[in-house]
């Protein structure tokens, strides 16, 4: 058995990483298609505010971050749909406000700075069995929701007007996609960290887009790339003694560059 698998914390890290790698690019495919990839960055920053609140109040940071982020996501979608503020402006406002609140709350929570940096840059090695179970059940919900609504989500991602004309429940499904993204972003905090999560959501999809000719194949290939990036990143992190979050994102970047070169 390879050395990396002899440590139970690394096995848990690999299982959690695989669950995230399978789920996040599936959501990312729809978000990138509708040019909404920055949403994960904004939601990650909001989730950090939830983490800060959790650390301050002495509750589990993730338990606090989930409702905070889902509410942030629903507000974001409401702003986009009501056209009060353009999509990219509301993303930018939410991104900086979320991080500002997070930093202030984390400062107020004395002695929590080490914990907080674990959520900023990822701390996959500290993933508990409970964390793995929560990630697994959320991933199951996300994948089931996508399978059940695949056609509608695809229609909306590429042609929202036509989807409305066809009677798809566009508003509801937009809230659903944003809410599911919020949940996965929070649960990915421990894996790659709030500052790096969007890389896992976007890079595998963009890399797959270089090579595939259909949406379905892009999605499958993006999941494969994300798995390679997560497992590769964890192996590099384990043997080279570097931060797992950074190693995972750099692996995804290497795959993206390779895909772009291959396409040329």
């Amino acid at each position, binding site marked *: 058995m390879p050395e990396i698998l002899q440590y139970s914390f690394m096995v848990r890290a690999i299982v959690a990483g695989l669950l995230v790698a399978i789920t996040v690019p599936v959501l990312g495919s729809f978000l*990138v298609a509708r040019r909404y*990839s920055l949403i994960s960055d904004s939601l990650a920053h909001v989730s950090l505010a939830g983490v800060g609140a959790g650390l301050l109040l002495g509750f589990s940071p993730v338990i606090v971050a989930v409702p905070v982020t889902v509410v942030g996501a629903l507000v974001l979608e409401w702003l986009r749909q009501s056209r009060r503020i353009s999509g990219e402006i509301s993303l930018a406002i939410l991104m900086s406000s979320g991080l500002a609140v997070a930093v202030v709350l984390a400062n107020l929570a004395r002695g929590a700075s080490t914990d907080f940096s674990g959520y900023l840059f990822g701390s996959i090695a500290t993933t508990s069995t409970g964390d793995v179970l929560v990630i697994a059940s959320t991933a199951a919900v996300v994948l089931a929701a996508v399978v059940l609504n695949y056609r509608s989500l695809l229609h909306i991602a*590429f*042609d929202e*007007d*036509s989807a*409305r004309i066809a009677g798809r429940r566009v508003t509801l499904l937009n809230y659903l996609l944003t809410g599911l993204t919020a949940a996965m972003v929070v649960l990915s905090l421990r894996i790659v960290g709030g500052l790096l999560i969007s890389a896992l959501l976007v890079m595998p*999809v963009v890399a797959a887009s270089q090579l*595939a*000719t259909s949406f379905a194949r892009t999605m499958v290939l993006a999941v494969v790339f994300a798995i390679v990036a997560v497992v590769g990143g964890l192996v590099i992190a384990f043997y080279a003694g570097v931060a797992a979050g950074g190693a995972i994102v750099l692996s995804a970047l290497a795959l993206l560059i390779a895909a772009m070169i291959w396409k040329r």
Partner: protein
Amino acid sequence: MSNTKTLKTSAVPLHANNKALLIDIDELCVRYGNELVLDAVTFCIHRGEFIGLIGSNGAGKTTLLKTVLGLLKPTSGTISRQQATIGYVPQRGASYSGAVPISVLEVVKLGANGATGAAKAALARAGMEQYAHKRFTELSGGQQQRVSIAKALAGNADVLILDEPATGIDERSQVEFYNLLQSLQAQGVTIIMVSHEVDTVLKLVTRVICLNRSILYDGPPEHFEADKYLPKAFARQHVQLHHHHEEPHA
């Protein structure tokens, strides 16, 4: 979307014929803030018609289409639809051009509610079956519009609504595209097309509606007096029209 309100008795349009009434638009007004974009627009659409909707930029053509499609709510007035499936072909480049690829077959399947057989049949009807597994964005402008029509046909559309479908398409592809529309009309499909190409519209359609907030002309193309209506239609653009097919740039 496809409501089936009881149809009201409405004003008989100039071109009245014996064909079945599909859509009845009555005293339709749409206002954006203080601006009245459509003012008391009234007309009926009958089965098998090929209607060309012309007017300047800002005349309310796209607003009218979107209101008929149910994407915009009218400020006042009513739109009553008989049971008809409407297929929408938006302006080229409005969709499917994102960072993630979508294949031609996937685009058409969106219209067929996922049914591969119906999607392939619709692609064949539009003469595009050999492109099924290509990326949509790899096709030429004319081919993309044919695929958009196939998508509408895959949903068994009996009414096609097209918004500037031939803009930016080379001349040869335009001819092929318009031939496809004519053959669909011959098969009984009702077509409503917004276009800037007044000359082409007059040759193709069975009925012209010239719009500038309200309807300036509604009747057969052979009775359309371009010199009389186009200056009114394009009045807001302050452009001197030498030939009625010239498209002023707003």
